[in-house]
Protein backbone atom coordinates (compact mmCIF):
# COMPACT_ATOMS: atom_id res chain seq x y z
CA UNK A 1 0.00 0.00 0.00
CA UNK A 2 1.27 3.45 -0.92
CA UNK A 3 2.22 5.67 1.97
CA UNK A 4 1.28 8.87 0.16
CA UNK A 5 -0.08 9.98 -3.21
CA UNK A 6 2.59 10.30 -5.90
CA UNK A 7 0.98 13.57 -6.99
CA UNK A 8 0.86 15.81 -3.96
CA UNK A 9 1.41 19.57 -4.27
CA UNK A 10 5.11 19.46 -3.53
CA UNK A 11 5.83 16.78 -6.07
CA UNK A 12 3.87 18.54 -8.79
CA UNK A 13 5.66 21.78 -7.90
CA UNK A 14 9.04 20.05 -8.12
CA UNK A 15 8.18 18.40 -11.42
CA UNK A 16 6.86 21.59 -13.04
CA UNK A 17 9.75 23.60 -11.58
CA UNK A 18 12.29 21.12 -12.86
CA UNK A 19 10.91 21.21 -16.40
CA UNK A 20 10.56 24.99 -16.42
CA UNK A 21 13.93 25.84 -14.89
CA UNK A 22 15.80 23.13 -16.77
CA UNK A 23 14.42 24.49 -20.04
CA UNK A 24 15.31 28.01 -19.03
CA UNK A 25 18.86 27.16 -18.02
CA UNK A 26 19.52 25.02 -21.09
CA UNK A 27 18.17 27.79 -23.33
CA UNK A 28 20.14 30.50 -21.47
CA UNK A 29 23.37 28.55 -21.92
CA UNK A 30 22.63 27.73 -25.54
CA UNK A 31 21.62 31.33 -26.35
CA UNK A 32 24.92 32.65 -25.04
CA UNK A 33 26.72 30.44 -27.52
CA UNK A 34 24.27 30.73 -30.40
CA UNK A 35 23.46 34.49 -30.05
CA UNK A 36 19.86 34.59 -31.36
CA UNK A 37 20.12 38.10 -32.83
CA UNK A 38 22.93 37.04 -35.13
CA UNK A 39 21.50 35.35 -38.27
CA UNK A 40 24.24 32.75 -38.67
CA UNK A 41 25.73 30.84 -35.76
CA UNK A 42 28.88 32.75 -34.76
CA UNK A 43 32.17 30.98 -34.06
CA UNK A 44 32.42 29.87 -30.44
CA UNK A 45 35.31 32.23 -29.72
CA UNK A 46 33.29 35.20 -30.96
CA UNK A 47 30.28 34.28 -28.82
CA UNK A 48 32.32 33.67 -25.67
CA UNK A 49 34.40 36.84 -25.96
CA UNK A 50 31.17 38.77 -26.60
CA UNK A 51 29.75 37.27 -23.41
CA UNK A 52 32.98 38.16 -21.57
CA UNK A 53 32.33 41.84 -22.36
CA UNK A 54 28.89 41.48 -20.77
CA UNK A 55 30.24 39.70 -17.68
CA UNK A 56 32.88 42.39 -17.23
CA UNK A 57 30.31 45.18 -17.59
CA UNK A 58 28.79 44.19 -14.20
CA UNK A 59 32.12 45.22 -12.59
CA UNK A 60 31.74 42.50 -9.99
CA UNK A 61 34.66 40.25 -10.82
CA UNK A 62 38.40 40.85 -11.07
CA UNK A 63 39.58 40.95 -14.70
CA UNK A 64 41.29 37.58 -14.36
CA UNK A 65 38.05 35.91 -13.28
CA UNK A 66 35.88 37.39 -16.03
CA UNK A 67 37.08 35.04 -18.75
CA UNK A 68 36.86 32.02 -16.44
CA UNK A 69 33.20 32.79 -15.76
CA UNK A 70 32.39 33.81 -19.32
CA UNK A 71 33.97 30.73 -20.87
CA UNK A 72 32.41 28.25 -18.46
CA UNK A 73 29.01 29.66 -17.49
CA UNK A 74 27.14 28.82 -20.73
CA UNK A 75 28.25 25.18 -20.51
CA UNK A 76 27.58 25.02 -16.77
CA UNK A 77 24.05 26.31 -17.37
CA UNK A 78 23.42 23.63 -19.99
CA UNK A 79 24.88 20.93 -17.75
CA UNK A 80 22.89 22.01 -14.69
CA UNK A 81 19.72 22.24 -16.77
CA UNK A 82 20.20 18.70 -18.09
CA UNK A 83 20.90 17.38 -14.59
CA UNK A 84 17.80 19.10 -13.27
CA UNK A 85 15.74 17.56 -16.03
CA UNK A 86 17.06 14.09 -15.36
CA UNK A 87 16.48 14.45 -11.64
CA UNK A 88 19.65 12.74 -10.56
CA UNK A 89 21.01 13.95 -7.20
CA UNK A 90 18.34 16.64 -7.13
CA UNK A 91 19.28 17.96 -3.71
CA UNK A 92 22.80 18.75 -4.88
CA UNK A 93 21.84 20.38 -8.18
CA UNK A 94 18.85 22.37 -6.92
CA UNK A 95 21.03 23.74 -4.10
CA UNK A 96 23.75 24.68 -6.55
CA UNK A 97 21.26 26.24 -8.97
CA UNK A 98 19.74 28.27 -6.14
CA UNK A 99 23.18 29.68 -5.40
CA UNK A 100 23.76 30.41 -9.10
CA UNK A 101 20.34 32.06 -9.38
CA UNK A 102 21.04 34.11 -6.22
CA UNK A 103 24.27 35.27 -7.84
CA UNK A 104 22.40 36.35 -10.99
CA UNK A 105 19.77 38.13 -8.93
CA UNK A 106 22.37 39.96 -6.86
CA UNK A 107 24.25 41.05 -10.00
CA UNK A 108 21.13 42.35 -11.74
CA UNK A 109 19.80 44.05 -8.60
CA UNK A 110 23.14 45.76 -7.95
CA UNK A 111 23.38 46.95 -11.58
CA UNK A 112 19.83 48.32 -11.38
CA UNK A 113 20.39 50.11 -8.06
CA UNK A 114 23.65 51.63 -9.29
CA UNK A 115 21.92 52.79 -12.53
CA UNK A 116 24.51 50.94 -14.57
CA UNK A 117 23.93 51.33 -18.31
CA UNK A 118 24.56 47.70 -19.14
CA UNK A 119 22.91 44.74 -20.80
CA UNK A 120 21.78 41.76 -18.79
CA UNK A 121 23.61 39.21 -20.93
CA UNK A 122 21.11 36.60 -19.74
CA UNK A 123 19.86 35.17 -23.04
CA UNK A 124 22.40 36.31 -25.60
CA UNK A 125 20.27 39.23 -26.78
CA UNK A 126 20.59 42.94 -25.91
CA UNK A 127 18.36 43.38 -22.84
CA UNK A 128 18.69 46.42 -20.63
CA UNK A 129 18.77 45.85 -16.89
CA UNK A 130 15.38 47.21 -15.83
CA UNK A 131 13.13 46.79 -12.82
CA UNK A 132 11.23 44.15 -14.80
CA UNK A 133 14.47 42.19 -15.21
CA UNK A 134 15.07 42.42 -11.45
CA UNK A 135 11.57 41.03 -10.79
CA UNK A 136 12.08 38.33 -13.39
CA UNK A 137 15.29 37.14 -11.76
CA UNK A 138 13.78 37.53 -8.29
CA UNK A 139 10.80 35.36 -9.22
CA UNK A 140 13.07 32.69 -10.64
CA UNK A 141 15.16 32.76 -7.47
CA UNK A 142 12.04 32.31 -5.30
CA UNK A 143 10.87 29.44 -7.53
CA UNK A 144 14.30 27.81 -7.38
CA UNK A 145 14.59 28.23 -3.60
CA UNK A 146 11.09 26.83 -2.99
CA UNK A 147 11.81 23.90 -5.22
CA UNK A 148 15.03 23.20 -3.33
CA UNK A 149 13.19 23.26 0.01
CA UNK A 150 10.51 20.91 -1.35
CA UNK A 151 13.15 18.57 -2.75
CA UNK A 152 14.78 18.30 0.68
CA UNK A 153 11.41 17.79 2.39
CA UNK A 154 10.35 15.11 -0.07
CA UNK A 155 13.68 13.33 0.24
CA UNK A 156 12.99 12.75 3.95
CA UNK A 157 9.82 10.84 3.17
CA UNK A 158 9.73 7.32 1.70
CA UNK A 159 9.12 7.28 -2.04
CA UNK A 160 5.42 6.74 -2.80
CA UNK A 161 6.18 3.86 -5.10
CA UNK A 162 8.43 2.11 -2.62
CA UNK A 163 7.04 -1.25 -1.58
CA UNK A 164 6.19 -1.37 2.12
CA UNK A 165 8.67 -3.24 4.23
CA UNK A 166 7.52 -6.78 4.77
CA UNK A 167 6.65 -7.66 8.32
Amino acid at each position, binding site marked *: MMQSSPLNFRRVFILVGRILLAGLFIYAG*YAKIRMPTVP*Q*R*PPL*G*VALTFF*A*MQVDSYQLLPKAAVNVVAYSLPFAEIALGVLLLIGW*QLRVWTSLLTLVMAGFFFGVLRAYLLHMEINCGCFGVPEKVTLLKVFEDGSLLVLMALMTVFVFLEARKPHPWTAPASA
Partner: protein
Amino acid sequence: MSWQRIQAGMIAIGLLAAVTYLSLGGHMAQAAPPKPQPQTVNVPDVDPHKAFGQKSAPVVLEIFSDFQCPACRQYYVGTNRQLLDNYVNTGKVYLIHRDFPLPMHAYSRVAARYARAAALIGKFEKVEDALFQNQQQWDQTGDVDGIVASALTSAEMTKVRALVKNDPAKLDALIEKDVALGRTYNVSQTPTSIFHANGQTYPYGGGIDYQFLKQFLDQLIGQK
Protein backbone atom coordinates in the same frame (compact mmCIF):
# COMPACT_ATOMS: atom_id res chain seq x y z
CA MET B 1 25.78 4.35 -5.19
CA SER B 2 23.23 2.21 -7.02
CA TRP B 3 23.60 1.06 -10.62
CA GLN B 4 20.53 3.12 -11.55
CA ARG B 5 22.20 6.30 -10.32
CA ILE B 6 25.36 5.52 -12.24
CA GLN B 7 23.24 4.98 -15.36
CA ALA B 8 21.44 8.28 -14.80
CA GLY B 9 24.79 10.03 -14.43
CA MET B 10 26.02 8.50 -17.67
CA ILE B 11 22.86 9.61 -19.46
CA ALA B 12 23.36 13.13 -18.08
CA ILE B 13 26.94 13.25 -19.28
CA GLY B 14 25.91 11.86 -22.68
CA LEU B 15 23.13 14.42 -23.06
CA LEU B 16 25.48 17.18 -22.03
CA ALA B 17 28.04 16.09 -24.56
CA ALA B 18 25.34 15.95 -27.28
CA VAL B 19 24.00 19.40 -26.45
CA THR B 20 27.51 20.85 -26.35
CA TYR B 21 28.41 19.22 -29.66
CA LEU B 22 25.23 20.51 -31.33
CA SER B 23 25.80 23.96 -29.89
CA LEU B 24 29.36 24.25 -31.07
CA GLY B 25 29.18 22.46 -34.38
CA GLY B 26 32.95 22.59 -34.62
CA HIS B 27 32.91 26.35 -34.92
CA MET B 28 35.85 27.09 -32.65
CA ALA B 29 37.51 30.31 -33.75
CA GLN B 30 41.17 30.22 -34.65
CA ALA B 31 43.56 31.06 -31.84
CA ALA B 32 46.19 32.06 -34.42
CA PRO B 33 47.17 35.72 -34.71
CA PRO B 34 44.42 37.71 -36.41
CA LYS B 35 44.75 38.28 -40.14
CA PRO B 36 42.70 41.26 -41.31
CA GLN B 37 40.49 40.31 -44.22
CA PRO B 38 39.08 43.18 -46.25
CA GLN B 39 35.33 43.30 -46.58
CA THR B 40 32.69 45.74 -47.68
CA VAL B 41 29.85 46.51 -45.32
CA ASN B 42 27.02 48.65 -46.60
CA VAL B 43 26.58 51.08 -43.74
CA PRO B 44 24.29 53.96 -44.72
CA ASP B 45 24.82 57.71 -44.19
CA VAL B 46 28.43 57.78 -43.14
CA ASP B 47 29.70 61.29 -42.49
CA PRO B 48 33.39 61.02 -43.49
CA HIS B 49 34.27 63.55 -40.81
CA LYS B 50 32.81 61.28 -38.14
CA ALA B 51 34.33 58.06 -39.44
CA PHE B 52 37.86 56.86 -38.81
CA GLY B 53 40.02 54.24 -40.46
CA GLN B 54 39.69 52.37 -43.73
CA LYS B 55 36.33 51.48 -45.21
CA SER B 56 37.73 48.10 -46.25
CA ALA B 57 38.61 47.12 -42.66
CA PRO B 58 37.47 43.61 -41.63
CA VAL B 59 35.37 45.04 -38.80
CA VAL B 60 33.05 48.03 -39.01
CA LEU B 61 32.09 49.47 -35.64
CA GLU B 62 29.29 52.00 -35.24
CA ILE B 63 29.10 53.63 -31.82
CA PHE B 64 25.82 55.30 -30.89
CA SER B 65 26.70 57.87 -28.32
CA ASP B 66 25.30 60.74 -26.26
CA PHE B 67 27.77 63.46 -25.28
CA GLN B 68 26.11 63.96 -21.89
CA CYS B 69 25.95 60.31 -20.90
CA PRO B 70 28.57 59.35 -18.23
CA ALA B 71 28.96 55.81 -19.61
CA CYS B 72 29.76 57.28 -23.05
CA ARG B 73 32.40 59.49 -21.46
CA GLN B 74 33.88 56.47 -19.71
CA TYR B 75 33.92 54.56 -23.01
CA TYR B 76 35.60 57.49 -24.74
CA VAL B 77 38.19 58.14 -22.05
CA GLY B 78 38.97 54.52 -21.19
CA THR B 79 38.66 52.67 -24.45
CA ASN B 80 38.50 54.91 -27.50
CA ARG B 81 42.15 56.04 -27.61
CA GLN B 82 43.51 52.50 -27.51
CA LEU B 83 40.90 51.38 -30.03
CA LEU B 84 42.03 54.12 -32.42
CA ASP B 85 45.73 53.40 -31.95
CA ASN B 86 45.62 49.60 -32.15
CA TYR B 87 42.72 48.81 -34.46
CA VAL B 88 41.49 51.86 -36.37
CA ASN B 89 44.85 53.33 -37.38
CA THR B 90 46.15 49.87 -38.29
CA GLY B 91 43.32 49.22 -40.75
CA LYS B 92 41.54 46.55 -38.73
CA VAL B 93 38.47 48.53 -37.69
CA TYR B 94 36.46 51.20 -39.46
CA LEU B 95 34.99 53.32 -36.66
CA ILE B 96 31.86 55.40 -37.17
CA HIS B 97 30.53 57.80 -34.57
CA ARG B 98 26.72 58.02 -34.46
CA ASP B 99 24.66 60.57 -32.58
CA PHE B 100 22.01 59.26 -30.25
CA PRO B 101 21.11 62.14 -27.90
CA LEU B 102 18.77 60.87 -25.21
CA PRO B 103 15.78 63.07 -24.26
CA MET B 104 16.57 62.63 -20.55
CA HIS B 105 19.76 64.70 -20.95
CA ALA B 106 19.10 68.44 -21.08
CA TYR B 107 22.13 69.48 -23.14
CA SER B 108 22.99 66.41 -25.20
CA ARG B 109 21.07 67.66 -28.25
CA VAL B 110 22.90 71.01 -28.11
CA ALA B 111 26.23 69.21 -27.74
CA ALA B 112 25.38 66.96 -30.69
CA ARG B 113 24.61 70.06 -32.82
CA TYR B 114 27.98 71.61 -31.98
CA ALA B 115 29.77 68.34 -32.72
CA ARG B 116 27.91 68.01 -36.04
CA ALA B 117 28.77 71.59 -36.96
CA ALA B 118 32.40 70.90 -36.08
CA ALA B 119 32.28 67.76 -38.23
CA LEU B 120 31.09 69.86 -41.19
CA ILE B 121 34.25 71.97 -40.95
CA GLY B 122 36.45 68.91 -40.32
CA LYS B 123 37.05 69.48 -36.59
CA PHE B 124 34.95 66.72 -35.07
CA GLU B 125 37.75 64.97 -33.19
CA LYS B 126 38.78 68.13 -31.32
CA VAL B 127 35.22 68.92 -30.29
CA GLU B 128 34.38 65.33 -29.37
CA ASP B 129 37.45 65.24 -27.13
CA ALA B 130 36.62 68.59 -25.49
CA LEU B 131 33.00 67.61 -24.86
CA PHE B 132 33.81 64.25 -23.29
CA GLN B 133 36.86 65.40 -21.32
CA ASN B 134 34.92 68.32 -19.81
CA GLN B 135 31.54 66.63 -19.57
CA GLN B 136 31.18 67.14 -15.83
CA GLN B 137 31.69 70.87 -16.33
CA TRP B 138 29.07 71.62 -19.02
CA ASP B 139 26.75 68.94 -17.65
CA GLN B 140 26.21 71.30 -14.69
CA THR B 141 26.26 74.67 -16.42
CA GLY B 142 25.01 73.86 -19.91
CA ASP B 143 27.86 75.94 -21.34
CA VAL B 144 28.52 73.76 -24.37
CA ASP B 145 29.52 76.79 -26.42
CA GLY B 146 32.28 77.74 -24.00
CA ILE B 147 33.76 74.24 -23.94
CA VAL B 148 33.72 73.96 -27.74
CA ALA B 149 35.26 77.44 -28.03
CA SER B 150 38.14 76.36 -25.80
CA ALA B 151 38.99 73.57 -28.25
CA LEU B 152 38.85 75.53 -31.52
CA THR B 153 40.49 78.59 -32.97
CA SER B 154 38.36 81.73 -33.10
CA ALA B 155 37.94 81.39 -36.88
CA GLU B 156 36.78 77.78 -36.52
CA MET B 157 34.48 78.72 -33.67
CA THR B 158 32.90 81.47 -35.73
CA LYS B 159 32.03 78.94 -38.42
CA VAL B 160 30.66 76.47 -35.88
CA ARG B 161 28.54 79.12 -34.17
CA ALA B 162 27.18 80.25 -37.52
CA LEU B 163 26.11 76.72 -38.38
CA VAL B 164 24.54 76.13 -34.96
CA LYS B 165 22.71 79.46 -34.88
CA ASN B 166 21.69 79.81 -38.53
CA ASP B 167 20.97 76.27 -39.53
CA PRO B 168 20.01 74.14 -36.51
CA ALA B 169 17.37 72.35 -38.59
CA LYS B 170 20.03 71.04 -40.96
CA LEU B 171 22.12 69.78 -38.04
CA ASP B 172 19.05 68.24 -36.39
CA ALA B 173 18.19 66.45 -39.62
CA LEU B 174 21.67 64.89 -39.67
CA ILE B 175 21.36 63.89 -36.02
CA GLU B 176 17.91 62.41 -36.61
CA LYS B 177 19.29 60.27 -39.43
CA ASP B 178 21.62 58.65 -36.93
CA VAL B 179 18.83 58.26 -34.37
CA ALA B 180 16.57 56.65 -36.99
CA LEU B 181 19.37 54.29 -37.96
CA GLY B 182 19.87 53.45 -34.29
CA ARG B 183 16.21 52.53 -33.98
CA THR B 184 16.60 50.02 -36.81
CA TYR B 185 19.23 48.33 -34.61
CA ASN B 186 16.90 48.61 -31.57
CA VAL B 187 19.29 50.97 -29.81
CA SER B 188 17.76 51.92 -26.47
CA GLN B 189 20.77 53.02 -24.44
CA THR B 190 24.10 54.72 -24.88
CA PRO B 191 26.75 53.84 -25.67
CA THR B 192 25.67 51.07 -28.01
CA SER B 193 28.24 49.46 -30.25
CA ILE B 194 27.19 47.76 -33.46
CA PHE B 195 29.89 45.45 -34.77
CA HIS B 196 29.77 44.31 -38.40
CA ALA B 197 32.08 41.49 -39.44
CA ASN B 198 31.88 38.65 -41.95
CA GLY B 199 28.36 39.66 -42.94
CA GLN B 200 27.11 39.42 -39.35
CA THR B 201 25.96 42.19 -37.04
CA TYR B 202 26.57 42.09 -33.28
CA PRO B 203 24.78 44.76 -31.23
CA TYR B 204 26.21 45.48 -27.79
CA GLY B 205 24.69 47.89 -25.27
CA GLY B 206 26.82 49.58 -22.62
CA GLY B 207 30.44 50.51 -22.12
CA ILE B 208 33.26 48.08 -22.85
CA ASP B 209 36.60 47.70 -21.12
CA TYR B 210 39.42 47.80 -23.68
CA GLN B 211 40.88 44.45 -22.58
CA PHE B 212 37.65 42.63 -23.42
CA LEU B 213 36.92 44.70 -26.51
CA LYS B 214 40.36 43.72 -27.76
CA GLN B 215 39.81 39.99 -27.33
CA PHE B 216 36.39 40.24 -29.03
CA LEU B 217 37.82 42.23 -31.96
CA ASP B 218 40.68 39.71 -32.31
CA GLN B 219 38.12 36.91 -32.56
CA LEU B 220 36.06 38.83 -35.12
CA ILE B 221 39.12 39.61 -37.22
CA GLY B 222 40.55 36.10 -36.90
CA GLN B 223 37.38 34.22 -37.83
CA LYS B 224 37.13 32.54 -41.22
